[in-house]
């Protein structure tokens, strides 16, 4: 972003990568795939790079409002400094925080999740499922991230990205507003679970297995980690792949 600003250019959209998208090896791949999609359709975009910082989401959910607001206000200063108007992000937590909680602190942007961007591009005819890997005959199911689904009522956009594939889309028993959490939210990703009989992501695997899906589509880097761990736990790595909506789109278009 700094480079673009130095050249006096303004991107159409800012891609908010998020901490997972920046540091988590699996999520980094999704980050690169989102960039591929943006490049493919010719949207000019920028990333903040080292100027980006945690939105404060995990701190806020865990009760540390101070830390959250410090992060938020710092980020808002950076974003406003670059006159950012529109943001796309690959993380439902960043999406929810910037979209819903930053306005109250003075940060007003149009924020979309990458699944919504993909839906828009499909609707505009700029993205199809052509020229890449065929998903024909594969059973795909979609896991709703809490902060995209229940949190912000985005249920259809990610499904749209899957509907254009020539494939069999199946729903899990608990889906959409009834979707079961992957277990990572609310700060759980960063702490040991409380005592219980089972881990939540393992419970979610029973829904995945029941759906007989070969591909579980995710739209959140934290769900990605939890679901992948669940598949590993069940020793189903050969049979079941966990892929982000962006990865599926990139593969289907051979990008």
């Amino acid at each position, binding site marked *: 972003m700094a480079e673009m600003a130095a050249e006096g250019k303004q991107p159409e959209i800012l891609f908010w*990568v998020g*901490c997972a*998208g*920046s*540091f988590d090896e699996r999520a*980094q791949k999704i980050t*690169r795939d989102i960039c591929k999609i943006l490049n493919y359709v010719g949207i000019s975009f920028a*990333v903040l*790079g*080292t100027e*980006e*910082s*945690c939105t*404060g989401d*995990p*701190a*806020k*959910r*865990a*009760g*540390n*409002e*101070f*830390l959250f*607001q*410090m*992060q938020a*206000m*710092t980020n808002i200063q950076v974003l406003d400094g670059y006159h950012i108007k529109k943001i796309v992000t690959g993380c439902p937590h960043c999406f*929810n925080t910037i979209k*819903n*909680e930053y306005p*109250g*602190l003075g940060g007003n942007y149009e924020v979309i999740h990458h699944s919504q961007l993909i839906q828009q591009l499909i609707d505009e005819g700029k993205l199809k499922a052509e020229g890449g890997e065929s998903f024909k005959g594969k059973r795909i199911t979609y896991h709703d991230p*809490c902060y995209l689904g*229940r*949190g*912000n009522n985005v249920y259809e956009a990610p499904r749209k990205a899957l509907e254009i594939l020539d494939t069999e889309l199946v729903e899990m028993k608990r889906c959409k*507003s*009834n979707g*079961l*959490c992957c*277990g990572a*939210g*609310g*700060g*759980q*990703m*960063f*702490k*040991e*679970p*409380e*005592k*219980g*009989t*089972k*881990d*939540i992501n393992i*419970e979610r695997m029973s829904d995945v297995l029941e759906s007989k899906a070969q591909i579980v589509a995710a739209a959140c880097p934290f769900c990605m980690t939890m679901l992948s761990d669940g598949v590993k736990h069940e020793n189903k790595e050969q049979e079941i792949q966990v892929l982000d909506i962006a990865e599926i789109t990139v593969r289907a278009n051979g990008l």
Partner: protein
Amino acid sequence: MIAQILFIIILAAAVYLFSKNAGKIRRNILLGKDTDRSDNPALRWKTMAKIALGQTKMVKRPVAAVMHFFIYVGFIIINLEVMEIMIDGIFGSHRIFSKPLGSLYGLLIGGFEILAVLVLTACVVFLARRNIVRLKRFSGTEMTEWPRSDANYILIIEILLMTAFLTMNAADHKLQLLNFGHYIKAGSFPVSHFVGNLLPGNADSLEIIERGCWWFHIIGILAFLNYLPYSKHFHILLAFPNTYYSNLNPKGEFTNMATVTNEVKAMMDPSFVPETSAEPMRFGAKDVTDLTWKNLMEAYTCTECGRCTSVCPANQMGKLLSPRKIMMDTRDRITEVGNNIDKHGKDHQDGKALLDNYITREELWACTTCNACTEACPVNINPLEIITEMRRYIVMEESQAPASLNNMFGNVENNGAPWKYSNADRFNWKERS
């Protein structure tokens, strides 16, 4: 005449006692902190119409939805009949609506009877679900003796009231056929004329039965009214204001604490002067009075149906957290605080608090903030907000977050990411393409 005076005294006492106890609940709710829910009245009315009046969130569980609908419609519509009973009781009249309503009256009474049967059926099914089938949703650590009995009492009272109503009609119908006394031919009795076969034939016994059931029914209703403030059944009243004052923002959005905003602004810009508030403040909630009046209203609205707990991922995994318990604990504690005020005056401290005395930290830290509980609640109760407020207290006032979360806070503060990665490496994802 004596009967009329007696009726008026009982009615007045019942209304007085109910207003007093309902007033106490109102007072208790207003012990909560202020929060503004006066915006967007049009959408609020719509939400209330849809969710409380239209019961749209009940349909996710169809059996319960249909049965509950019978009782709900029965309750509301049979109240028209109760109005007539009240007027008859005060003025000593009998079936006063029958003349002005003409043939419509027969239709109404007939309709009430059919509804009464539906209510009876639903109550029996509900009793069976709780006591014979023993649905998992109705058990759990918080479902101790009293909440279980409370549910059964409500259903049994409703069964008794409906039975009395039908028996009263049956006796009345038979007396009408005998042209006895003031029992004018009025109403239609599609259900109770079957019950009539079980009743004696002579007019005197019939009159005793009719009067007996009439008094039992109306005193039962007034007693039930006074039971409400002590019971989860209070939801029949609070469901309406509670949905009116619903959170209209996206569920993922948590409140931004204005007090914190002031401090952060002052920290980032030394020239910033916040509007000072004289009141010493506490971050987050340790006790019920740190919560908002809306949180407390929700606690009194909760009817302990357990939909929240049954969809809670933490609860399903055998963890201590149960969103229903959060609401019940909040209600029990604010009731206790209210009782203390009544007994010992406004400033009494009992040395107890919602945190630790009612809700343990282990429960609070098990929440994934997934919003399944708020989505499931048929009357838009939000246990998550209480959990968050209590976490805020633990973190910001006590600095007692679990060690692993403190590490995460440290990382966010120092590296701008929840993990221990250097911020300089944030753009490294680009290299590996």
